[in-house]
Structures are given as structure tokens and as C-alpha cells.
């Protein structure tokens, strides 16, 4: 086969550089554009706004728990933390753009902490009562592992007899300040920059040449989150059975939020991937495909909710054979959803997954 004409016409210099754009029908292009807008306006931007509110509420309740120590104010701060974990778990998948800038996602939550490095750093700060960790400005200059949710969870666990020790209060308050600043920067980054880049692809756009690239970036984030949940947040914790299960590797173990956070991760991915009721979507095959994705992810979410019925934290739950089985089952629909995305959703949208485009090779 002879070269396509464009190949022979490319000359010296930048003139004539032509990107390889996806081969997309007009109906697919319309759907891609609609998906990008829907995901942005109904999921990403509202979820980041909720994160800002949750970090502000954590600031307020932490200050109250420290200013007026009591079991009630401490309980409010702990409840605010659980809400904050849930809000974070909605946006955890967006590891690009504003989340990558200034390492904001890692700054919000350091995970995985494979060798307990972050936990040891926080422990050292608490033991040494490092005064530079009580000022948000100097705290920001420290390791990202000591200034986010995983650190705050450890600080809140310092409470005894319904009150927080003085140093933990001051360190914890500084964490809430940093976290709130980071959440605000994330929202601004998405609202003022990343969303516009996704909405307006084209030759001059530094990131997205067409709507296909834009929607693929969003779908990829959701898919990667499902893989992380399936393999790392569930698989590595559950292992082969209750006897070999490893609760120590579970995120948000100290606050009892492991499975709730996982359920929110799945729900957030579902909001990005599944759109059976998208206004104007009249292609029955596409509707069915979205329903299949929706079904798989709802099955997984239902299994995790059922596992939450078993009392206790993650350690107790995965030690129970029936609950362990439930959580193992929850992994299967996640795998099915990933397969549906790769083999049917991308082709239906006129997209392909580059064989050589993965990270790190």
C-alpha cells in the first residue's frame, strides 16, 4: 500500500504536522461532546464544589473540637471527617490536570502508603510535637504524606476520653487549613482551566485535539479508578480468604471508612461511565450498553453495601467468611465493567485504546 498523501506531503518544519484524529461519525461526535459536558457539569464540577464545602466543615468542626473540647464537638469533627473522606472519594479518580498540579491529589491524601512511610512520619511529628507542623504555611513545605486526609485520620485517632490532646489539635487544625486551600485550588483549576480545555478541543488546544480525546480522558480516569478499587483496595486487602486477608493495607482503616470510600469510588465512576438517561440519546444500542455498565456497577455497589451490614471495621468484616465472599464477589462486576468499556463502549463512541499509549514504558 502506498503512503497516504498526507505522509508524503509533510515537509521540513512544523508546517504540515497533522495529528492522527479518530475516525468518528457525526452522531458519535455529538454524543462525545454531550458526554463531556454532562460529566463536567453534573459530576466533576459539583463534586469538587462539595469537596470545598466538606473541607470547610472539617475546618470549622476541628476548631470547635479544639476550642471547646467535649465528646460532642469531637464527634462532630469525626463526622465531618467521614463526610470529607466521602467527598474526596468522589474526585479521587482525577489524577490529571489540576489534581496533578502542585501534587494536589497526593497532598489531599497520601495513598498507597506501601511501607507505612507516611504513618511513621505523622507519628514522629506527633511524638516530637513539631511546631512547624502547626502552621499551615510550613506544613505545606513538608512531605505530602503528613498534610492530607490520611494524616488527619491518624491525628483524630489521638483523641482520648472524648477530647483531642493540645498538640494534636493544633497539628490537625493546620491540616484542615491546608486541605481546604488545596480543595479550593482544585475547584478553581477545574472550573477555570481544565473544564474549558475539555469543552473546547482543537488544533490550538494544548491537550485535546478533538472531543474524542476529551471524553476518552474522562472515561479513562473512571476506568482506572475501578481497576484500582478492584485490584488494590479490595484485592490486596481480601487476598485468598479470611486467613490471609490483610486489613492493614486498607485505606481509611482507622476511621472505619474503607468500604464506604470504596462504594463512593464506584458510584463516582458510574456517574462518569453510565448515561442511560442522557437527554437526546435515542440510539437503543447505546442505551443498552450504558444500562449494562450501570447494572454491573450497581451490582458491585450493592455487594459492598451488604458487606457494610456486618458490624465492626474492615478487619472484622474480612475475617467473616460470608462478608469476605461478598466483597470478593463485588470485584467481578468491576472486571466486567472494565471489559465493557474496553471492548464495547470505546468502539461505540468511535474511539480506540492505543496499544502503546500506556504510562511508564
Amino acid at each position, binding site marked *: *500500500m*502506498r*503512503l*497516504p498523501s*498526507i*505522509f*508524503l*506531503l*509533510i*515537509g*521540513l*518544519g*512544523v508546517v504540515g*504536522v*497533522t*495529528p*492522527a484524529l479518530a475516525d468518528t461519525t457525526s452522531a458519535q461526535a455529538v454524543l462525545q461532546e454531550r458526554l463531556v459536558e454532562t460529566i463536567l457539569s453534573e459530576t466533576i464540577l459539583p463534586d469538587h464544589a462539595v469537596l470545598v464545602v466538606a473541607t470547610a466543615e472539617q475546618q470549622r468542626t476541628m476548631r470547635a473540637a479544639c476550642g471547646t473540647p467535649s465528646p460532642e464537638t469531637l464527634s462532630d469533627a469525626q463526622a465531618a471527617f467521614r463526610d470529607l473522606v466521602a467527598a474526596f472519594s468522589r474526585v479521587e479518580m482525577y489524577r*490529571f*490536570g489540576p489534581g*496533578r*498540579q502542585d*501534587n494536589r491529589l*497526593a*497532598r489531599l491524601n497520601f495513598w*498507597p502508603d*506501601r*511501607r507505612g512511610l507516611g504513618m511513621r512520619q505523622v507519628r514522629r511529628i506527633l511524638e516530637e510535637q513539631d511546631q512547624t507542623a502547626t502552621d499551615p504555611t510550613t506544613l505545606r513545605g513538608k*512531605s*505530602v504524606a503528613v498534610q492530607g486526609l490520611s494524616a488527619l485520620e491518624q491525628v483524630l485517632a489521638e483523641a482520648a476520653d472524648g477530647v483531642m490532646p493540645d498538640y494534636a489539635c493544633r497539628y490537625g487544625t493546620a491540616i484542615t487549613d491546608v486541605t481546604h486551600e488545596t480543595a479550593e485550588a482544585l475547584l478553581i483549576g477545574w472550573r477555570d*482551566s481544565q473544564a474549558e*480545555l475539555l469543552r473546547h478541543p482543537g488544533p490550538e488546544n*494544548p*491537550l485535546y485535539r478533538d472531543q474524542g480525546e476529551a471524553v476518552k480522558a474522562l472515561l479513562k480516569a473512571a476506568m482506572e479508578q475501578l481497576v*484500582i478499587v478492584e*485490584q*488494590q483496595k479490595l484485592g*490486596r486487602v481480601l487476598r485468598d480468604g479470611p486467613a490471609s486477608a490483610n486489613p492493614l*493495607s486498607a485505606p481509611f482503616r482507622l476511621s472505619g471508612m474503607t468500604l464506604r470510600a470504596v462504594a463512593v469510588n464506584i458510584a463516582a465512576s458510574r456517574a462518569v461511565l453510565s448515561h442511560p438517561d442522557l437527554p437526546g440519546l435515542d440510539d437503543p444500542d447505546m442505551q443498552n450498553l450504558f444500562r449494562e455498565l450501570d447494572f454491573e456497577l450497581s451490582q458491585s455497589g450493592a455487594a459492598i453495601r451488604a458487606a457494610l451490614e456486618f458490624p465492626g471495621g474492615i478487619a472484622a468484616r474480612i475475617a467473616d467468611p460470608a462478608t469476605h465472599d461478598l466483597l470478593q464477589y463485588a470485584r467481578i462486576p468491576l472486571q466486567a465493567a472494565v471489559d465493557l468499556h474496553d471492548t464495547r463502549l470505546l468502539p461505540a463512541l468511535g474511539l*480506540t485504546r*492505543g*496499544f*502503546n*499509549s*500506556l*504510562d*511508564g*514504558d
Partner: protein
Amino acid sequence: METDRRTLLLSLFCTALPVGRAVAGASVVPTFLTTGRRDGRFHAMALSGTGHILGEFPLPDRGHGFAVSRDGRRAVAFARRPGRFAIPFDPATMRPSAPLPLPANRHFYGHGLFSADGERLLTSQNDFDAGRGVLAVHDVRRDHRRIGEFATHGIGPHECLLSDDGRSAVIANGGILTHPDYPRRKLNLDSMRSTLVRLDLASGDLLARASLPPALYQLSMRHLAATPDGATWFCCQHEGVATEQPPLIGRWDRNGEIRLIDLPAAVTRLMRNYAGSIAATPDGRRIAVTSPRGGIIVVLDGRSGAFLESISLPDTCGIAPSGDGFMATAGTGTVLLGGKTDAHPDIAWDNHMVTLKP
């Protein structure tokens, strides 16, 4: 001008004269080695100078790069990171032998090299419990037994090259911390640092080290190509914010200086912060870099670093010298050679391709 452009392209992607020895049962001798996926299975493949498949053997999982001895008689196909297989084989017959032994606390990074005499094989590996890179040393004549390892003085060693005099190796420490418990997660993006190092192959001593300016701490140097003037060319992937788009190609001179190559802004933008493979012509006059995300091949002047050309080839990554030019492959199955494309729609060509040396 049309003629000139065409002539340039044809010269850069010309058809090489066949080199090497005949593949058993085949009438054409192999020139290239690469890996690919067909029918959901992965294979190491030998290609002719015109891009035809001459022989192959199956791989347990997705492959990545190759080590090839200087005489072209031995080669090793490596798993894609964090894979655990490395399979020696005879390129003339494509007959594999027993895989390399590998300790439980190591995995391969997809690349390796043979010593000049072909007696030692060195492979880039991850000592993942310690979070450090090593260059493991294998005795080729004793079933590739592991006889030691050298520290690479960095994290995430990736491609490594033997020096012209055979006494040292250049290794690209990509700087990205990974662990097989968290497949394809990058665990240190906030603090990563990539380096190029030169190690003495007799002692493992660190002879030289180079790094990028601190502002570019998230630029990961990963793939290498050597030129006869003693320079090592490298290409990178950027782990920072996507809109930053720093240079992705550079040159480490014999005097130890690193120079990053500025490309036209539109080309840099098209590369999408990710260069997948780099190759140099034997005379060092041309350097080619592939960007699978952007679907382009960038060609530079190997002496001045000047940008010469960019060529559209969706999902391209494999590239290797072919005579005075290059052959390129793509995940779509396309082979680009001799000014023509050849379609293999049933094959997804993998990241790397090497030219066998006679």
C-alpha cells in the same frame, strides 16, 4: 520542493540491505526483532529487512525490549514491566531457551544488554522492597545464572546501553517508584528524580551521573540511543501537569553535559508529554523519536539537534535504524519502511524494535 520532501522521507525510512543469518526454514534473513500481540497472545518476532515476519515464538505475557549480543547470535526478549520473564533465544532460529532466573523480590524493567564478548547479560531490575534500581549480572554460558548485581544509583532503571569500548554501560533511571503490589501506580511523583548514569561494567563503580534541572524533576528519562561521537540521546515522559509540556528529547555529551532539544511548539504539543522510543542511524546523523500518544515520529539532525521532520503514524512506538534511515511500527499493525506502509491488521506491534547487528 515536493521532490525534496519525498526524497528526504524515502531516505529516512529506506529499505535496509538484509543482514544477519537465515531463519530456519525461511529464505530471507532477519533484520529486526520486535514483539507484538496477535489473537490476544503475545509473541517475539523476527522481521526481514522489508518488514516481513520470518519467525516467532510465543511469550507468556506482553513483551517490551530486547538485548542483542554484538555478534547478533544471542538475544533476550524481556517482559513489559513489572513482568518477571526474560527469554534468551537464537535470532537465527527464533528458538527460545530457558527463561532467566529471577529472585522473588525483583522484577524486570523490560531492557538489558550483553557485554562486548557476549559472556555476560545485564538486566535492569527493580529491587522493589528496597525501592532501588539494580543492574543484575548473568553468566550467559552457565544457563544465565545470576552472579551478582550493581546498584544503578537511582529508582526505576529502564533502558541501558553498552558503550562503544565495551567497558561501561549507560542506564536511564526513570526515577518513578513502583511496586508490583500496586500495578502501574506511580508512588513518588511528588519527589521523583530521574538520572542518567554510567557504570563500570567490571566493578559496578559509578563513573558519571547526570540529572535535569530541579524544575524538571517530573521529567522521566527512560529510553536511549548512542551515536558514534560518544553521545547518548534520550527521550522522556513527563509526569507533571499536562499543560507544562517540557522538552522530551535530550543529549548527554561525552563531556557530561545534558542538553534538552527544543522542538517547534506544535510538535511538542502533539507529543503529549510522552516519547516512547528513540533510535539513531549508525552514522549518528539522524535521530528518530516516536510518540504513541501523539501518533507522530520526530526526526532530528544528530549533529546539531535541529528538528527535521515529523511524520504522522497513529499509535507508533517501535523504531529502529534501517540503513541510513529507520523502520517504524505501530499498535495499529502498520509497518513504515522504504517510503511505504505495510498493514498487518491482525497484529498490534509493541513499544520497541531492535536492528540485529551482523
